[in-house]
């Protein structure tokens, strides 16, 4: 079965991204497919490579990046939500005249259409938020 996942809250502040990560790992472990993980609202902040969590805590962005690499997950950050919150890739930085980008490996920025497309193509859509 194909799952589409929405993450609506930022890392550490809410448990949403942890719960989503646990769900995705369990889905993959039980033979399901995860067609996309869509990061919306503050969820876009999961995809910053500039975070430096305490060493004795889980490394949320790195966990997602590693899981994406291992399973070829499509981690999509909503462009509109990301612009509001300051999450950019190099393309966006160039286009908007910003002097830096902060997106992490394994994430890509795209439009809200990718959320709707995910809802259409996935057998189940599940949101982790606040």
């Amino acid at each position, binding site marked *: 079965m194909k799952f589409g996942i*929405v993450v609506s809250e930022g890392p550490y502040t809410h448990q949403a991204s942890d719960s989503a990560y646990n769900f995705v790992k369990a889905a993959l472990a039980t033979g399901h497919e995860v067609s996309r993980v869509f990061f*919306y*609202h503050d969820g876009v902040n999961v995809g910053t490579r500039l975070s430096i969590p305490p060493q004795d805590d889980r490394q949320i962005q790195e966990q997602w990046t590693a899981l994406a690499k291992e399973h070829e997950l499509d981690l999509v950050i909503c462009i*509109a*939500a990301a612009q509001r919150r300051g999450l950019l890739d190099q393309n966006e930085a160039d286009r908007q005249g910003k002097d830096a980008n902060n997106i992490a490996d394994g994430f890509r920025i795209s*439009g*809200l*259409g990718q*959320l*709707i*497309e995910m*809802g*259409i*193509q996935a057998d189940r*859509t599940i*949101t982790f*938020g606040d």
Partner: protein
Amino acid sequence: MSIVKKFLYVNRKAPYGTIYAQEALEVVLIGAAFDQDVSMAFLDDGVFQLTKGQDTKEAGLKNFSPTFRALGDYEVTKLYVEQESLDERGLTLDDLQDIQWEDEDDDYAEKPSIIVVSRAGMADVMADQDVVLSF
């Protein structure tokens, strides 16, 4: 894509204190391009999103409430509002914006987009969907 699914956007939060209502609308507008069977649900504090007369100038916020009246142009015409949620908050339909859509198949007659349903009716709407997105 020729699949047509029933999408429900569930709105249970008040506007302005948090961004969920505003960013939900952004999803609905983009989603309209996908020709799906779209409904919106307003219950609990979500019914406050539809009040008329919102004026955000003094608070320094962006007033996104006019967008609700544009939904008809995007063929988003089913806004289910829960009667019990209105009652608990002392609101009536008169307190909400007048949101309409033009029915092409009926000589462009203007028809109301807001459909007031009971709590049981809202549960029926929710149970009839393929995809439920909550904000």
